């Protein structure tokens, strides 16, 4: 404890600070000597101490700022995908790894089933299970749910450490510290890593940053060991998230950029080859990825660059052997032409023969933002796949948005292999963040790092200014500063009269901005990103908090009141939750692997009841679940998602046509709605008996509060379905599919 008493804040007081009285009573002399010794810290040690304590604080901060949701609601899993992850983790801890690996789940995608073991990224589940087993081994009797809830905050804390080391690697320790602080509370990252958000991204961002850090370290040192470490980091990333494709494309792009700018070096050769070959071999061990590294178009860039590196190395060697420059140039031309030609032919043959699969839709939609909208409605239908609005950039990055270009400026001013990397990472990920909302997450670490460079460099320059002034005016006492880069700044122009005041003002400005950033981050985390979305909260008329726990009410109803082998049809959003909480078989779920199956459900929802009945019979559907927000004003309900059902259904079954549901291109549910809209299954199920209900004072019965209109069809009769359960706020409605008429 004595060590933490850190009086020397300034660094200059150490020598001058009076030590405790040397003549202490003998009984505690040992202690006094100890504290005496510890107080006589060297500047380096003090700095280390400060750094470590800052990092510890940041580590804790990153964890606790993500706990709003646990405090506000309860320790619960959020949203949709995390429920699947939770269910699989539970299975993993109960049945063991091999059962998990070979798990064929017959409860989802009825009747097709899903090979869970082969179609997921197991990194997250294995991580959580390891932590669970570890805690159990240490005799901490935790529940697996608690582990799952806290996995993301824990990894966010770890990410801050990686950010520190990364910042240190590309700039200096100051930048590292600032990066750690910035990333600890950056809303862009918090949005995916609050407690309860048990999703792949939670650990994947850690893995992503770790891989990049280790790779940059390997490039900087040329060490095989760091290369190996980055290969393992890559392996962890591949096991955790599909976003690894970003790594396997960014790193080759980076290497290519270095090659083009003439920064080829042996360090780069060692780092890339080691990382690529080992990383690829390791990644192949993940069942879901399999042979994609050699067979899929998305991974071909890495392979091409790998071969290019060998050509470079070979050329280097030939250059070394040949002294004739002319001869070498001829040789170079021939070799490069041949290499490119062979590569192109190999790629062409591979693609033509189908050995190399073409790019996937998601990949295309990244490169061409309009692609998904035109071709793959199922990707376009997901809200987190929408192009990003300016406001969400501001919301997620706040001042980092302005610091980012400044940081880029500093990076360009001091170009090195490492800064080139962070620049490329920042620019590409910013582009992707603009294409898809969810990729803001990938951009966040880069933005934080680059902004940290800006902040750190600016503040350092400003303080340097102040210090040199004081140095001149005060005694010439030697003092160590953080980076030890004072010598380069010695020739600062000291003739400016207002420089000192300006620096002070700027410093205050910077601190003001940073404190605004901290306030903004906390506010965003608390208000926007800590809602579990499975439990909805609203403000009542008297300012009190109203909780709508309808989802869980419905899922528990399913669990308690339906036969164990009942099949539930719903739009795919709710599939994971139904299987995880309701423990019932679903037709489609959030793993949107089979477009036709989803389209079938979309078709059923957008058909007339009798046609839908045939479809439901063919899928053995027992219950239909719809989400309806007309009573509570909950806007992300099935009626608002309905056009996507029509589009996705119509994409496979052309009998479903979007214009049939629109009136003059307008989507309405009131009296002026299209006749097909008023009689399709989704409309009927959502608004069944709603016409009798008075939702708002002063409005006619059947007033839909989510859309603010009086519904058009109040007299809904169901022929083949019957209402089985409606939750207390009507958010979830469950219908039972009747057996066919007995006498007909």
């Amino acid at each position, binding site marked *: 404890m004595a060590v933490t008493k850190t009086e020397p804040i300034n660094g200059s007081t150490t020598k001058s600070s009076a030590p405790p009285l040397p003549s202490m009573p003998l009984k505690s002399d040992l202690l006094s000597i100890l504290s005496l010794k510890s107080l006589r810290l060297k500047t380096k040690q003090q700095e280390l101490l400060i750094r470590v304590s800052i990092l510890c604080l940041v580590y804790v901060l990153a964890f606790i700022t993500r706990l709003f949701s646990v405090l506000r609601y309860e320790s619960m899993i959020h949203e949709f995908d995390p429920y699947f992850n939770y269910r699989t983790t539970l299975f993993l801890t109960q049945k063991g790894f*091999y059962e998990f*690996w*070979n798990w*064929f789940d*017959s409860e989802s995608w*009825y*009747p*097709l*089933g899903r*090979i869970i*073991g082969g179609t997921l990224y197991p990194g997250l589940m294995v991580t959580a299970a390891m932590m669970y087993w570890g805690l159990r081994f240490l005799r901490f009797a935790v529940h697996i749910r608690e582990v799952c809830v806290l996995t993301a905050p824990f990894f966010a804390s770890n990410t801050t450490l990686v950010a520190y080391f990364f910042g240190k690697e590309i700039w200096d320790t100051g930048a590292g510290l600032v990066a750690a602080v910035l990333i600890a509370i950056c809303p862009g990252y918090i949005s995916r890593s609050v407690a309860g958000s048990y999703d792949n991204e939670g650990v994947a961002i850690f893995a992503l940053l770790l891989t990049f850090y280790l790779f940059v370290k390997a490039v900087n040192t040329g060490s095989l060991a760091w290369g190996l470490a980055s290969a393992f980091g890559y392996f962890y990333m591949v096991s955790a998230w599909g976003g690894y494709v970003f790594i396997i494309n960014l790193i080759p792009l980076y290497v290519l950029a270095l090659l083009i700018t003439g920064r080829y070096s042996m360090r780069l050769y060692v780092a890339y080859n080691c990382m690529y070959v080992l990383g690829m071999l390791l990644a192949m061990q993940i*069942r879901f990825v399999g042979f994609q590294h050699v067979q899929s178009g998305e991974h071909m860039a890495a392979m091409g660059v790998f071969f290019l590196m060998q050509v470079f190395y070979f050329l280097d060697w030939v250059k070394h052997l040949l002294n004739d420059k002319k001869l070498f140039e001829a040789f170079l031309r021939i070799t490069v032409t041949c290499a490119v030609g062979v590569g192109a032919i190999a790629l062409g043959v591979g693609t033509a023969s189908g050995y190399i699969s073409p790019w996937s839709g998601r990949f295309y939609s990244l490169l061409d933002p309009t692609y998904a909208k035109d071709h793959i409605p199922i990707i376009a239908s997901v809200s987190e796949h929408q192009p990003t609005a300016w406001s969400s950039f501001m919301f997620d990055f706040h001042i980092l948005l302005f610091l980012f270009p400044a940081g880029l400026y500093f990076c360009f001013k001091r170009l090195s292999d490492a800064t080139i990397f962070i620049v490329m990472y920042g620019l590409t990920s910013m582009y992707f963040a603009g294409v898809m909302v969810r990729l803001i997450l990938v951009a966040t670490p880069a933005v934080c790092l680059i902004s940290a460079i800006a902040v750190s460099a600016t503040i350092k320059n400003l303080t340097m200014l102040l210090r040199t002034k004081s140095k001149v005016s005060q005694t010439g006492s030697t003092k160590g500063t953080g980076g030890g880069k004072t010598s380069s700044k010695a020739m600062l122009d000291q003739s400016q009269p207002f420089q000192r005041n300006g620096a002070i003002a700027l410093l205050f400005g910077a601190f003001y901005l940073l404190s605004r950033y901290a306030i903004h981050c906390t506010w965003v985390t608390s208000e926007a990103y800590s809602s579990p979305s499975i439990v909805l909260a609203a403000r009542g008329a008297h300012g009190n908090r109203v909780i709508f726990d309808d989802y869980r009410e419905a899922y528990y109803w399913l669990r308690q009141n339906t036969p164990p*082998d009942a099949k539930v049809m719903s739009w795919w959003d709710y599939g994971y939750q139904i299987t995880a909480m309701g423990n019932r*078989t679903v037709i489609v779920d959030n793993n949107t692997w089979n477009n036709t199956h989803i389209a079938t459900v979309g078709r059923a929802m957008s058909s007339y009841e009798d046609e839908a009945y045939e479809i439901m019979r*063919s*899928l053995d559907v027992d219950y239909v679940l719809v989400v309806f927000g007309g009573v509570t004003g909950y806007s992300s309900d099935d009626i608002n998602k309905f056009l996507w059902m029509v589009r996705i259904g119509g994409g496979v079954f052309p009998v479903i046509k979007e214009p049939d549901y629109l009136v003059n291109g307008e989507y309405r549910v009131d009296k002026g709605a299209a006749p097909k809209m008023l009689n399709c299954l989704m409309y009927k199920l959502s608004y069944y008996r709603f016409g009798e209900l008075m939702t708002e004072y002063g409005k006619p019965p059947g007033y839909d509060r989510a859309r603010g209109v009086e519904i058009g069809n109040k007299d809904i009769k169901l022929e083949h379905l019957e209402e089985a359960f409606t939750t207390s706020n009507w958010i979830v409605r469950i219908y039972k599919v009747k*057996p*066919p*008429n*007995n*006498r*007909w």
Partner: protein
Amino acid sequence: MGRNYFTILTVLSVTLLPILSLSFSTDSPNRSSPLSPPRRLLADDPKLALQRYGQYLYDGLILFSPSIERFGGALDLADVLDFVDSGHDLIIAADSSSSDLIKSVATECGVDFDEDPSALVIDHKSYAVAETEGDHTLIAADDFIESDVLLGKKKIEAPVLFKGIAHSLNAANTLVLKVLSASPLAYSANPNSKLSSPPSLTGSSISLVSVVQARNNARIMITGSLDMFSNRFLRSSVQKAGSSRKYDKSGNEQFVTELSKWVFHVRGHLKAVNLRHNKAGETDEPAMYRIKDDLVFSVEIYEWSGKSWEPYVANDVQVQLYMMSPYVLKTLSNDKKGLYHTSFKVPDVYGVFQFKVEYHRLGYTSLSLFKQIPVRPFRHNEYERFITAAFPYYGASFTMMAGFFLFSFVYLYHK
């Protein structure tokens, strides 16, 4: 309570007709205890009720009260239909005085009586020869459905006397069958007035007696002639017009007796039990199969003979392994003792399959058996460990290892 006995409620019209006595001697297939005597109640009996305390008191209901407008007690149309929908049997007889109530019961069961209340079935060709040349509304019908299950093994020789109203089958109903149809020259019209417009129902689209076997195997018989069941008709002699042969006794007794045996599940009742499947060479039923497993499937089917369960022998029972469409469709072979079995290989497709036996034969109880069974793909250690095609790769890796070792050795120790 009444459920222990096979009970029939006969609801009679006020004009008490003598009714047929059904000759059941032992228990019926789905009922375990001996038959209790049928209860006869008047249709407007105020105590008329089909169920008490949520339990049905009867297993069969005969409505011989065509003209009743409202049943006594609390019984109404919905109750009668619920009675059928919970698996019980029903016989309805209508005649020219039929009420809307009876007609709507029939409509709900898939037959539509002629809307003209005064119309009767008239046939100028195959009428029954009587002492007086009448209006040809007494018909000698012999256009039976060809089914031993419905009408018994013994062929009905004599025509059946029929005097009543016509009905037609609702085209939307797939379950209703014509058991006795009118001749092609019959039509439905008021015999006492001149035909002003073509009759709405003509020819063999007119059904005289129809049956329905509902999806829950409840059986319903509907006829437009109450007289068909009368002693007068049962005992009457019959001669069809244009035919020289005169029968001493009409076919009515045999026809209605046999058909009501069918209606009350004495005949044509199948049961399927012990649906079993297991991997070849094992006996336990697995919870899940693997693709390409060999499996054995068996089911036992018995037929109720009126006294006991006898093995049902047929060569057209099929099993499907079904997932949205049948992947395997195999005819089951039987051992003449009721056991049907087959063996086949699970297809190379994973998913949630169903064993499906869909056996629908005219007159027989329809058997629809499902058993859900998931089929999983290979586990990671169920693939072949060493494959011939990979030998070059094995060779490559081992030579690489050896080469590396040798190279290191040479490099380290060679001067």
